[in-house]
């Protein structure tokens, strides 16, 4: 066994983003190679294609989906909302890595906070659980805590909260329940 220093990633992230843009064309809305973790923003409907491309392309081979996290961009205080620097939206962030080449990439999907701007209608994103086993539970978690409906997920139910819980707590405008099965909140 060698104690040599680890080999550098084969492809610089800029190159990966470039390839992604070249091959997936319109599916990639924008690329951000200057970010701390360089990322690409992908059109939600094209997500499974892009992920399949990233996974199956031999030069890229992103076969590890480490993490899926949802981020709710909303400033609930209307006085501070103007200064917040973002429009209200939801992001689902996918952190990928290649087992063979070790390089990493971040893919983002931007969703509206509510589908068709109707409060209570969960926004939809296609599932990638058929491509990555790790997406199964992570998508359930994002659904549970942020309320994103992953279309095509085989078993989309709450994972951390109980099944009769109301609301999605990691949303910024979530209201804490006053009572749950006779247990007083607040």
């Amino acid at each position: 066994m060698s104690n040599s220093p680890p080999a550098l990633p084969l492809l610089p992230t800029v190159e990966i983003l470039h390839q992604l843009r070249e091959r997936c064309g319109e599916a990639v809305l924008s690329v951000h190679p200057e970010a701390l973790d360089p990322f690409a923003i992908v059109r939600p409907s094209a997500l499974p294609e892009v992920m399949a491309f990233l996974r199956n392309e031999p030069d890229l081979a992103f076969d590890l989906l480490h993490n899926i996290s949802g981020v709710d961009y909303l400033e609930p205080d209307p006085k501070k909302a103007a200064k917040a620097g973002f429009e209200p939206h939801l992001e689902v962030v996918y952190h990928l890595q290649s087992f063979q080449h070790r390089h990493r990439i971040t893919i983002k999907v931007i969703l509206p906070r509510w589908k068709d701007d109707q409060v209570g209608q969960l926004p939809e994103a296609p599932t990638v659980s058929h491509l990555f086993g790790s997406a199964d539970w992570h998508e359930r978690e994002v659904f549970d805590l942020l309320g994103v409906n992953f279309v095509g997920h085989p078993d989309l139910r709450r994972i951390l909260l109980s099944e009769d819980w109301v609301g999605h707590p990691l949303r910024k405008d979530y209201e804490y329940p006053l009572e749950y099965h006779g247990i007083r909140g607040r």
Partner: protein
Amino acid sequence: MAIVSPPRQPNTPTLIEFDVRTDEMLVNMGPQHPSTHGVLRLLLATDGEVIREVTPHLGYLHRCAEKIGENVTPIQFIPYTDRMDYLSAMNMNLGYSLAVEKLCSLKVPQKADVIRVIIAELNRIASHLVGMGTYGLDLGTFSPFLYAFREREMILDLFEAACGARLTYSYLTIGGPHDDLPLGWVGQCRTFLNYFKKRVPEYHALLTTNHIFISRTAGVGVLPKQVALSHACSGPVLRGSLDRRAGDPEWDLRKLEPYCGYETYSFQVAQPPFDDEHFGIPYRKPNEAVIGDCWHRFFVRMIEVVQSIAIIEQALGRYEKLQDEFLAAREKHLAEQAKRSPEERKKAEVAYNELLKTRLGHRVEPPRHLPAGEAYLETECPRGAMGFYVVGRADKPVVPLRVRAKSSSFLNLSVIREIARGCLIADIPAIIGSLDIVMGEIDR
């Protein structure tokens, strides 16, 4: 689900078929079951003794850690990371600190990095000791547990001397540990390591080469490499399924994406096959064991313990050197300050502080506001790659917009459906024990 035999047709010669299949029975295991390592509930669909399907139910220990992270400053969140993986709280502190430091582009002094390595590796040993001891408990042997906890107590004593706490330390904060190691600590740590080195063969005698242990773990719960990768397993669970000889990379973040200067330490990554004496341990894999089974996952941890000792010994040497340098520099600085004129004094003070910041100090003050942007960082914790994802905001409040803790145990547990199918009920504790999960980290 009862299998109903078809109704007998009237006026036909009686043909009686015996359905030898037994009814499928649902067995509820947990949430209060000693071998589920916390509050995990497994719903087993069984056919006699054989498992048809496992459905894990999580969330009994959910404490909204991520929501809390959005409402407190990064420093205030450190104690909450303690309570994620409470068996290796130091590693959790370190993971979150590094993620925030990455977002702030904060560089910590060299000595802080060395202290972090020492403490994190000590906690790795303590954590693997619990993993090893409780694994014995799961399989019905009590004594390894007692020995493991005897040694773990000594590590906890060292931690108590360093930071005052024995379980939830909050010691490795953002910018470095909140205090330097106390006087005489290095000597105590060395004494412990020398004592501990001699104990390792005892564990192997108790478990690794124990005939009953081998027959309970070897060839049981085989996790194929492809499944492990698809579920993004990490840590000993993934490494136990890899094959060094088949060209699999050494999948350890301390080697692949070194942090805290791990690239400067010499150590080996425990990766099967274990049929030679590569790791300086005179034990080889039993004939029944195959790569990816419970025995291999267990043995990876046992080797990691020995490798951690080697890392700590190197780090202690470096710490002593840096500490001597620090004491000399401080003495010289204080002695010379008295003789200087006020302007010179100011200048010298700045130079001295710079030296502390880059090299000899144990901590730098982190910025009060997080910059806009986001950082995702994984560190190699005892249970696998723990990732923290921190999002800052442009309007610069003191709290982050989002804190996400990606748990390694969460993904390691998710393979249970795949690997427990078709095994016996009695193998379930063996499989869960070999995954070495901590529910505090899964449920957060």
